[in-house]
């Protein structure tokens, strides 16, 4: 409360909220710590899978199929081929994580580039890009995945492209909104007034303000995309057997659920969940850590986008329930 700072004109005066409480911060730190540990363990064990995994993930041993978890030599048991589940999960992390990370990285770069172009372009190009993004936005991704799988053979590339299609509009909108918001800040005009050129404004003023958001958003997307990719693989348009992949493993395990071998699908499913949660937490944590500004939450998801030139006069009541500082987790949710 010591900060005698700016009283935003429209803000309610009755309810001044205090700054973030220290206890929450430690809670967050713990969360980020746990997330980092999980991600580190998964990433490292994927990278060093040949060293870490107790067995060859593809080595089948029909004599010892469906060993329950805790069997000697097979901590998590074995699957229908007698392959070691733990080893497959470790190796599966390679495929699953790689697909998600590559797909998200690709989409983030493309989506951000589109958004930044749209943010700085004239109304025509900007409108074209953002309306296209709008159309892509709510379009059922599965249809795209189906089309891609029809065009190319099902496989990782289909998953990556499908994810890109799903994620680019989200990234574009988030970044576009962010760029717009930053462009609306007086510091951009200040830079103009101080003689800065277009490139300087884009790269030296606005971009540093947007990158954090992009990184945070991308991070929180990785988890969701691990999940989404696993579902695509599970319905057969993603990673193909016998490659170890979590989604693939869920699908394989699903075949023997009724026979009573629940754990075959259970463990990879849990793995997907845990890793996805970890990325979520990391994203949340990064947002707190990287956010030197005390700014409000994720940008609007409404389709009409910015109110335009007269946005300055829009009363708060009309702004809808988004953009609230208290959003926990990313407001933008991607289907999976």
């Amino acid at each position: 409360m010591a900060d005698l700072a700016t009283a935003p004109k429209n803000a309610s005066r009755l309810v001044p909220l205090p700054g973030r409480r220290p206890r929450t911060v430690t809670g967050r730190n713990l969360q980020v710590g746990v997330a980092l540990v999980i991600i580190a363990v998964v990433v490292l064990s994927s990278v060093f899978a040949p060293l870490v995994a107790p067995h060859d993930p593809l080595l089948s041993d029909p004599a010892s199929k469906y060993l329950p978890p805790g069997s000697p030599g097979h901590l998590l048991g074995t699957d229908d081929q007698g392959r070691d589940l733990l080893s497959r999960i470790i190796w599966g992390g390679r495929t699953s994580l790689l697909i998600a990370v590559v797909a998200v990285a690709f989409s983030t770069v493309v989506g951000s580039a589109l958004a930044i172009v749209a943010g700085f372009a004239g109304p025509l190009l900007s409108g074209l890009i953002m309306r296209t993004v709008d159309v892509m936005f709510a379009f059922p991704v599965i249809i795209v995945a189906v089309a891609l799988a029809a065009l190319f053979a099902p496989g990782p590339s289909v998953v990556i492209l499908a994810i890109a299609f799903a994620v680019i509009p989200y990234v574009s909108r988030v970044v576009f909104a962010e760029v717009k918001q930053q462009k609306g800040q007086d510091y951009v005009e200040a830079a103009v007034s101080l003689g800065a050129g277009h490139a300087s404004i884009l790269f030296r003023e606005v971009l540093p303000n947007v990158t954090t958001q992009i990184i945070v958003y991308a991070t929180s997307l990785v988890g969701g995309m691990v999940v989404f990719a696993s579902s695509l693989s599970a319905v057969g348009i993603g990673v193909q057997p016998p490659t170890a992949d979590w989604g693939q493993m869920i699908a394989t395990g699903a075949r023997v659920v009724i026979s009573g071998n629940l754990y075959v699908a259970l463990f990879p499913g849990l793995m997907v969940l845990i890793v996805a949660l970890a990325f979520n937490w990391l994203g949340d944590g990064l947002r707190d850590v990287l956010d030197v500004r005390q700014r409000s939450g994720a940008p609007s998801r409404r389709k009409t986008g910015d109110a335009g030139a007269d946005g300055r006069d829009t009363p708060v009541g009309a702004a809808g329930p988004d953009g609230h500082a208290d959003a926990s987790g990313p407001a933008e949710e991607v289907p999976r």
Partner: protein
Amino acid sequence: MRRIVSGVALIAASAVLLHGCAAGGGPAATGDAGEPVEGGDFVSALYLEPRGLDPHRQVFWETYRVSRHIFEPLVQEDLTQTEGVPDLQPALAESWESSDDGRTWTFTLRQDATFHDGSRFDAEAVHQNVQRVWDEDYEFYDEEAAGRLQVWFGNLSEAQPVDDFTYEFTFSEPFLGFPRILAQSMYTLPIGNPAVWEEHGNDAFADQPEGTGPYRFVSRAIGDRIELERNEDYYGDRPYLDTLTFRIIPNNQTRVASLLNNEVDHISYVQPDDVETLENAGFNVPEGTGAQLIYLSFNYDNPQLQDERVRKALIHGLDREALAEQVFNGYASPQYSFLPPGNEAYDPAVRDFEYDPEAARELLADAGYEPGELHFNLVVDVANENLAQWLQDAYGQIGVETEIVSLDRVSYSARVYNSEEGDGLSLDEFGETNAEWLFNGYNGLTGRGLDQDDYPEVTEAIQEALYTDDEDARIQQWQEAEALLRENALVIPAVNLTRYYATGPNVQGFTFASTNWYDLSTVWLSE
């Protein structure tokens, strides 16, 4: 350990059951709950969506498992037989005879049959069916159907009614296997009601399929179900069940669960892993020797496999007993002949190249491959993925490296007929009861790049058997042809499934016939 013990016990139990049936000579392979009861709605769960219910266009086995209750052939096989070659029985034809040269077949048709719309079945109706698939001048000549039936009707030179209830086929070559071919499921001529296609066109037939069979078509919702109801005007034995519903449940687990939850009475394609679960829960998983052959085809476009030594090595390297035991939990029998059990020319005694990894390695070395040097793709239908993985492992032990390409059914067919570089083996399943199937199967290998001119003695032997006019020598000729094919290591027979269907505890009279379809008109539900 528990699994194996109970498995053994079960095999013993069903063996007893089979014996009982065979001894009793009754139609029921499942259950023995007293007198048959009429009535009831029977639900069967299929694992694949059937194609359109058009008697001349059908392909997948799940299609004719449905359609055979609607359409009848001229001649049928006895589907109550659980072992051996099913006998031929009259269906729409009361009797049939061939000329001495085996080129002309005359069928005397039954006179009491009617189509589902009440119209009379006669020689003219048969003729319209024949014209549809053979006579290019016929207004409703159907190219697609004709293409499918080409394999058997290609040599048909003349076909016409002799009188109202006599029909005559004349072939340019002797065709002694013709009646049994007519009794098969696909690429043949079940009789549909010509009035339907003449009114609605060939493409629309499948929307309102009509035949003469014990059940008539009610409705179909693709992806969900096909419903049939009893044909009250059926000329033959009145079927017990009021309605037949075929639900499409591709997901293996859901299919089993549906049976367990009494949602359905019958399922096909039981997974080996589920047999024990079902039996423990009191469901019947009948054992049989139906033609459910699984075999491996070489890709002859791959130069590595044109080397006979390599092919032999790959047969030597395959422990089929272990395969049957480990992949199929023992619910399959090792197969050493390209002809499945139930086939006219099947000989259980024949053997190809016994399991001998050492011999396999030597043959490979002889062919110039050090361990690890031979490398190719295993192309499989996704349903057989676990088998492929087992194979990968097995071939690894003789120094052959394989990569699994697992595809869905249709992509799989596309891939094997348009193989890509590096493709080596593909996994197929099929089998018919007619000896002519060898011809069909051999032709199938040409689709895998086999040049029949490279194996003239095999080609010749098959042609000879196909066109023989000597009824007594026919089977032996086919067996000789098979032996030649086997000696040249042209194909790798793997296993024949012995468990395939499962039925609910109250299903009576279901027979796992020794071919790859079944008859539900003898089935009834007990309480």
